[in-house]
């Protein structure tokens, strides 16, 4: 039981650190990756909290698809920025 509590404590701390990292990250890309880390940690936490349904959904949707469309958008925006620079 002590081990369980320690694991939960560590996960919560990792998650909070990740959240702070998302807010303060230097680039958009690293912020998106940190968001993925937070989502995955949360999924682990859900698994430990006897909520396997939520854990699966969190992994697939919040950690997987969400991060994917963020990266998609970032690439799109970068391309536009690069194009604009070329024009100048």
């Amino acid at each position: 039981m002590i081990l369980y509590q320690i694991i939960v404590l560590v996960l919560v701390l990792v998650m909070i650190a990740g959240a702070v990292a998302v807010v303060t990250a230097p680039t958009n890309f690293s912020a998106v990756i940190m968001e993925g880390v937070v989502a995955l940690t949360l999924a682990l936490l859900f698994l430990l909290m006897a909520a396997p349904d939520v854990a699966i959904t969190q992994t697939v949707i919040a950690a997987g698809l969400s991060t994917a469309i963020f990266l998609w958008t970032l690439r799109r925006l970068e391309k536009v920025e690069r194009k604009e620079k070329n024009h100048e």
Partner: protein
Amino acid sequence: MNKVAALGVIVILGIFIQMALHDSNPGKGAFPEKSSSLVADSYLTKSVSQKAPAEISPGDTKLENGAANVVTSVVVDYRGFDTLGEVTILFAVAAGIGLFLKKRPHFKPRQPGTILKTLVPLAVFFIFITGSYVFLHGHLTPGGGFPGGAMMAAGVVLLALSIRKSMRSVFFKILESLAGISFVAIGLIGLYTKGSFLQNFLGAGALGNLYSAWLVMILYFIIGIKVAAELSSVIADFDQMEEGGKQ
């Protein structure tokens, strides 16, 4: 907003939350000693509208709801109306993106290599099988329509990334539409045969069997298809706008 001011707002809010959670006044607090839930036990013992049986074991047939996964029974049956709203949200997102984003038709897809061309469809085939397994077994095991549908959508992403062909969102739209119509139609059948919207008109089946909890299974199948189609069509829209940058 100024960083200091924002920090001030956060601190004040934090203090308010701390005071609210550790309120020492008499009354019910946020950390009840005994579980305060009025509803959870009835969900677990399947005794919402009938008396709880003395014992519940897999294989029981006389329960009001035959889903072994209680979360599923809450999502699809007891609170199925929320879930209808939920798929409506994804539908609205897909429709909204289609409404305000301009489509860019002219682009040249890059041709993939042979390895990708042969291996990715195989992988996607397995992803589809897993996804459909997850939502067909939603009433028995963890998972269900949403993650299952999202897995299938992930397969579509993989296809889109590797094959580099413009994705046809028409197919998804039709699938989405059919699934949505059948969801509401099932609700209306419940309304006119049993008296209330989305009511189970198929019986509960045996607890823990694959072919049980008919309504839950059918609805989760529909939800899975609908979520897969909606997410794929959202991704197709994103894919098109991404390609648009290249032209």
